[in-house]
């Protein structure tokens, strides 16, 4: 835990430098012929979406470890990952409609990917709600939600995909040429560095909160 905390400042510096450079890197990519400028939101939207999924996975694995081993560090990581899933999910759900309004002409479409993203976002929001309002012992309960959320996510995606593909419609999925792939990977790396830094920072906060609560309890005793 202490080693991870020490990593936070350098990681944040790296992320800040990368985000400062990101507009210039994105500028090297060619304009997409039909969508033009609006397509560039993808360089943030897609990496954030990937980080959200990774974060969900981290939360699920950490929840499972906490549930079966009762290791406090796993719990701190799980709550940090759940919170970051919700934050990154909000960014995905905000940048998506901005693009969709321009490309599809609507803010929202009950497309398979959109629907499963919103369902998974709700699972992690439920995790946080349960933790916040569940009262004592809620970390075990929310760990079960985290574990279920991770295991069920393929089924959610699968069933939603199946539900939508029964009513086929054209989807806009550009195949990525290499001048666009470079900036995309750069942004993915930047968001990932930021994610790891925030994850460690939030886990440290959770650990400090737990230590404080423990101190209060021992004073009362």
């Amino acid at each position, binding site marked *: 835990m202490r080693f991870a905390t020490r990593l936070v400042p350098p990681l944040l510096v790296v992320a800040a430098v990368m985000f400062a450079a990101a507009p210039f890197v994105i500028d090297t990519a060619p304009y997409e012929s039909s969508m033009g400028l609006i397509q560039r939101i993808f360089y943030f939207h897609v990496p954030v979406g990937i980080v959200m999924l990774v974060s969900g996975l981290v939360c699920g694995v950490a929840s499972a470890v906490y*549930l*079966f081993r009762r290791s406090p560090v796993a719990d701190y990581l799980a709550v940090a990952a759940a919170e970051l899933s919700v934050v990154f999910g909000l960014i995905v759900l905000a940048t998506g409609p901005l693009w969709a309004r321009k490309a599809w002409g609507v803010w929202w479409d009950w497309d398979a990917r959109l629907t499963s993203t919103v*369902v*998974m976002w*709700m*699972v992690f929001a*439920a995790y946080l*709600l*349960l933790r916040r*309002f*569940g*009262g004592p*012992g*809620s970390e*075990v*309960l929310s*760990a*079960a*939600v985290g*574990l*279920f*959320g991770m*295991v*069920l996510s393929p*089924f*959610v995606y*699968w*069933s*939603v995909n*199946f*539900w939508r593909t*029964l009513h086929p419609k054209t989807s806009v999925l550009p195949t990525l040429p290499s001048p666009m792939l470079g900036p995309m990977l750069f942004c993915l790396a930047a968001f990932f560095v930021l994610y790891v830094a925030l994850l460690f920072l939030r886990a440290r906060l959770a650990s400090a909160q737990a230590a404080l609560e423990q101190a209060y309890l021992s004073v009362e005793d």
Partner: protein
Amino acid sequence: MKDVLRAAWLIAQKDLRVEARSRELIYTTIFFAMACVLIFAFAFVRDGRPIEHAPAGILWVAIVFSGTLALARAFERERQSETLRALLLAPSERAAVYLGKLFAVLILLAAVEALLVPIVGLLFQAPLLRAPWLLAGLLASGTIGFAAVGTLFAAMLVRAQSRDVLLPVVLYPLTVPVIIGGLQGTAFIFAAEPNFDMARLWLSMLVFFDAVFVTLALWTFAPVMTE
């Protein structure tokens, strides 16, 4: 294995006996489902006839809403009479407690559906007898999947604060696969041009989801219910 099932059946019998004496859950759940159906009638009936695909949706939303109510109350009873600890102290596997509660909830929901389905059929002209076995299979497998996750989370939340609100908040996103499966399968049977192959496909997927949900719930029940 045999012992676990026997203990589970004893717990289910206990719950059903308590319910048979008070009939609190069955009456309130059925009337709640009816109230849902009534509200849907105002939303989804145009010129005296339900709009297309509405009956399947009305049926499943009523099942899910009333199922949530029944799940929450099934464990509330243990809390009120402070018998949850006694139940957990019973000299059998934790899995037996989960399975017993699940059996009892399923039997209760089956009784509710036995009334609710004909009522929706009558009020919204849903062709219930077009493929009765397929419909029964979809209802059974959908309810099992929903109740499998629901029983686990209702049991967990018994000791949590604001459990009444938290149960649906947690339950609905997690049970999306079974809700989609049941709804779509039923909609294919009720459609003006029914597609039984698709309904059968959803039924097989629901059976698969049930296996995953029950396994996962059995696996997590013991570590979650330790004090």
